[in-house]
């Protein structure tokens, strides 16, 4: 797959301006046949030529770098892979053309697709609930039991002419008593269905927040500044101590921090009314400290820095999405507080991105360090660009921050060959691979399954897998690639994004037939 997909945009713009290929090529100082290759997405352009192209065609440079189109194309390809569209045999290359020519229509289609998926999920959840909700099952059984008693007794009264008065009275009482019980059940059912109008949670907010973070390139300069100010306010110097944060929260916000030995919940909880933060005593230090930092981030300057960052985007269309994004930004600010940008970047470069070293150096958890690594995107002072995925033991991607050329599926699972899955087999150990996609893109994947504390020994282990990805071009800066053969001729693991979308026909690990006929 070519690295840019802006050919159609260039061609359309050229035609709108009334320029021939020969004329534009001459202005740009290239041959018409080369321009033709560019417009057909067979050659990519960058650097000075791209700038001149943008100037000559009077388009903003950002509109020509193609990242937004690539994301759109990825979304369209996933849409095309929906089983309900299989009989249309959609041509996958049509997605690139469509997205290039009609980006707004493409976005409209994507929006509808998401809304449709939301409805589908909601319907499934509701019908599952009706089938499996224990209350409903019991209520229905109770209704039938009460009616059976009433019917049987009233039939007797109706048909038995010579019934004794004492018996007559007995059955009348039974009917009365069972009617009262039936009233109770019926009222409970009515109340239940009233409550049931609360509705289901749409899945779109997750995607909107993903898009929001992607739009900002997962870097928020205003929050980095806020973090620096917060550090100063809290008097944090060097590695942040838990006690410093506790003292600061009390001093600046009147927050009391208490430990809950066995609350049954292992997560922290902040009660606004009493201004008390309850930390799970059994949580590891890095987790407790992060919880304190998150609260400090949420309360800093009455939450204004985060709200301003949210307001600047039009991508969050619902309160649910905004709430989710707000929590993500609290975590961002907390991470920036604990791992200040310049220090963290310098340490990361020095250590060649050794995550365990960084975790020790900043007393943070493996997961916190991975997330921070993906934010090192300050223009002019950026680290190796990483993508990140978080995978649960059922294989589902619970968090995804993609790279421009790395296709991370939006829904469900990814390719079973990815290091992120292999990591579950060796919890705590780093698994690395050079993953080669059918398009020719190669990435270094490094993954580890980390264990979260579980509330008690009798409950199952909690593992999640965190996978970082970077273009193989940067791999030589990363300690985890040491010893791997990074040359283009070296053996790699042939992967795809997921089985449904993948074009590899001869893969032994294929779990699902591809939808797209390549």
């Amino acid at each position: 797959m070519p690295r840019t997909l802006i050919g159609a945009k260039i061609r359309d713009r050229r035609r709108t301006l009334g320029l021939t290929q020969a004329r534009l090529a001459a202005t740009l100082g290239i041959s018409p046949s080369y321009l033709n290759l560019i417009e057909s997405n067979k050659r990519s352009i960058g650097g000075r030529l791209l700038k001149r192209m943008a100037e000559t065609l009077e388009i903003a440079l950002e509109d020509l770098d193609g990242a937004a189109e690539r994301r759109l194309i990825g979304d369209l390809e996933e849409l095309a892979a929906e089983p309900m569209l299989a009989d249309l045999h959609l041509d996958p290359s049509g997605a690139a053309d469509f997205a290039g020519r009609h980006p707004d229509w493409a976005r409209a289609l994507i929006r509808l697709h998401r809304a449709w998926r939301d409805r589908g999920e909601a319907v499934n959840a509701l019908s599952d609930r009706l089938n499996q909700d224990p209350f409903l099952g019991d209520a229905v059984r109770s209704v039938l039991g009460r009616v059976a008693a009433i019917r049987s007794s009233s039939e007797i009264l109706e048909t038995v002419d010579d019934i004794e008065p004492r018996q007559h009275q007995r059955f009348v009482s039974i009917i009365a008593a069972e009617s009262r019980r039936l009233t109770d059940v019926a009222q409970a059912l009515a109340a239940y269905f009233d409550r049931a109008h609360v509705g289901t949670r749409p899945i779109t907010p997750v995607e909107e927040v993903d898009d929001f973070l992607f739009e900002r390139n997962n870097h928020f300069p205003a929050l980095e500044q806020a973090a620096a100010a917060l550090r100063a306010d809290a008097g944090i110097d060097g590695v942040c101590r838990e006690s410093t944060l506790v003292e600061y929260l009390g001093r600046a916000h009147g927050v009391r921090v208490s430990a809950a030995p066995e609350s049954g919940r292992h997560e922290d909880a902040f009660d606004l009314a009493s201004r008390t933060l309850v930390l799970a005593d059994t949580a590891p230090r890095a987790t407790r400290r992060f919880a304190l930092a998150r609260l400090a981030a949420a309360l800093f300057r009455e939450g204004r820095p985060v709200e301003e960052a949210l307001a600047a985007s039009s991508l969050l269309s619902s309160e649910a999405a905004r709430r989710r994004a707000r929590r993500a930004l609290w975590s961002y600010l907390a991470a920036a507080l604990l791992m200040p940008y310049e220090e963290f970047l310098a340490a990361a470069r020095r250590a060649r991105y050794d995550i365990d070293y960084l975790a020790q150096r900043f007393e943070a958890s493996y997961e916190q360090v991975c997330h921070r690594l993906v934010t090192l995107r300050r223009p002019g002072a950026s680290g190796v660009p990483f993508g990140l995925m978080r995978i649960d033991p059922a294989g589902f991607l619970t968090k995804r921050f993609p790279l421009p050329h790395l296709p991370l599926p939006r829904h469900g699972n990814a390719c079973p060959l990815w290091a992120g899955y292999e990591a579950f087999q060796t919890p705590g150990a780093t698994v690395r691979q050079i993953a080669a996609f059918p398009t020719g893109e190669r990435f270094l994947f490094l993954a580890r399954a980390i264990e979260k504390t579980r509330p008690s020994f009798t409950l199952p282990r909690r593992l999640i897998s965190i996978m970082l990805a970077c273009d193989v071009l940067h791999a030589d800066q990363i300690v985890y690639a040491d010893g791997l053969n990074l040359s283009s001729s070296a053996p790699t693991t042939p992967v795809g994004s997921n089985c449904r979308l993948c074009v590899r026909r001869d893969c032994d690990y294929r779990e699902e037939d591809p939808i797209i006929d390549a």
Partner: protein
Amino acid sequence: MARVLIAEDEPHIVESLSFVLEREGYDVAAAADGESALASLRGARPDVLILDVMLPKLNGFEVLKQIRRDPALVSLPVIVLTAKGQARDRRMAEEIGVSGFMTKPFSNRDVIAEVRRLIPG
């Protein structure tokens, strides 16, 4: 006199069913849970059993399974009483071996008809 055992934990249903069955000339006994139903069956085999699916201690299916495994009881006619006409309950009962079905709410007349059908003479 033919004997009917009703295994049902709802006392009001037991009362009305007993009333109508006794009027038809049957001798009626009752058990309110699965364990006492089995004990009663083994103590004195009735001519037909009306068995509710939802019983405390031992549910109706378990009771039915034990009946079919017991040589003394294997041929006992059993009418299963279900609160839901759900196909799943019927299938399970049929697999184990049942002689008749009644779903709640039932008509007394239908119960009597079933009992008459299953008790010879």
